[in-house]
């Protein structure tokens, strides 16, 4: 029973990896937007990133 499950599961895993690579999927987090106005091209300041004013880590020991 488990053998059959594992065979099917393995095929799904390989298929999933292949599909993710083929479709160019990513693990990185980002925000997707639709209909960004064309005016941004001429006036970049009219667009505000949701990631702006990020609290920056100033590292070091």
């Amino acid at each position, binding site marked *: 029973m488990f053998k059959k499950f594992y065979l099917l599961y393995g095929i799904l*895993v390989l298929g999933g*990896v*292949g599909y993710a690579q083929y479709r*160019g*999927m990513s693990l*990185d987090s980002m925000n997707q937007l639709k209909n960004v106005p064309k005016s941004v091209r001429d006036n970049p300041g009219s667009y505000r990133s949701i990631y702006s004013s990020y609290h*920056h880590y*100033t590292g070091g020991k």
Partner: protein
Amino acid sequence: MSSGLPPIQGAPKPQVKALNCPKCGAAIMLRALGQAISVVCASCHSILDAKDPNLAILQTFDKITSSDPPLIPLGTRGKIRGTDYEVIGFERRNIQVEGIRYFWHEYVLFNPYKGFRYLTEYQGHWNDIAICKELPIIDTRFSTPPEANYLGEMYKHFQSADANTDYVLGEFPWEVRVGEHASVTDYIHPPRVLSSERMSNEVTWSIGEYIYGKDLWSAFALPGSPPEAQGVYENEPSPFSTNIQAVWMAFAVFALGLLILMIGFEASAKKESVFHQSYLLSRGEPKGESSFVTNTFNLDGRTSSVEVTTSAGVQNDWIYVNYALINQDTGQAWDFGREVSFYSGYDSDGSWSEGKQTDSVVVPSVQPGNYYLRIEPEVDRSHAPVVYSVDVRRDVPVSAFYGIGFLALLIPAILVTWRSVSFERSRWSESDHPPSPIFNTGDN
């Protein structure tokens, strides 16, 4: 533990006879007339000589198991391995290990043409027992634990103990006695168990096979359900062991498949550089609006990934860049922010460093089209001049997927192996050869 009992030779004519107990007068039905050696009166529990026409009393004993009746009543008929048998005898036996008594039950089955067969039951675990056709060969020289060879199959020694009979009922093909002692030794090759039973100078070997209670209940058409099996029995077949080798074989094949996928995608990925630009942020910049847009670049081919790499020559400093990858024609955009920071120094532990001067991010499933980047850098107010560059590549595979895939394949294989190992450890923990603990606690 199994019963080691002599078989009855030949194919006798079936005979049944009704007699009366010479002690209490209760009716006794002899189901294996001519073959049973002993019969126990169900009323007064006298053990009688079944060979004697007058049923001479061999032994009397106090009934001590009124709360422990046979799970399969005497007289019940059922089919075992294609042959009809009738339950004619029942006994309870026990062994004592480290001061604890462990009880099990044995049932005598009879078919007038096939002879006797036995069932044993211990905490819901059942075995179908028959007398050995050949004498096993014991090998104690090279193997630990010792092994027995029976019909070419090797059986590992599991346990040796002194068994005591404390309750009997029905008919038996030997001179049964309450208080009877025997040295019993079990060798296992799941689902089979090979047992020897020594009484005085006589040794009897029997071979048993694990049988599930539900199958017995079905074979004997018993009402209700069998008692639930507790723990792992000595010859209980492992539900995992047959899978282990096949699962690891499958894992190896899948891992190879993953490697082939990786090689294939790495070889076929375009990894095409579609944009590269360097920028300088002088001291005090940016002033006012810091965002700007790049020239338009074309992403062609099928829907695939886009990798944006930010490189900055920061030293004990950071730069944070807000990005938006925008499709010029459709207005679709991916918004993300990336930080590049690098710190290093020297202290009493020696030199140290933290962070990297390069950062990459993969934008998923970007359709072909004309795109540009909106870039908005952020830096510390007191920053030194920073040169940073932005690279955009099309169709870049994500290596992490292979790692995730590998782990996804590995974890079930490890889990099933662990369960199999745990099962075997549970089995052998009850034997004369318990496995050593995995984690040594250091306690004595």
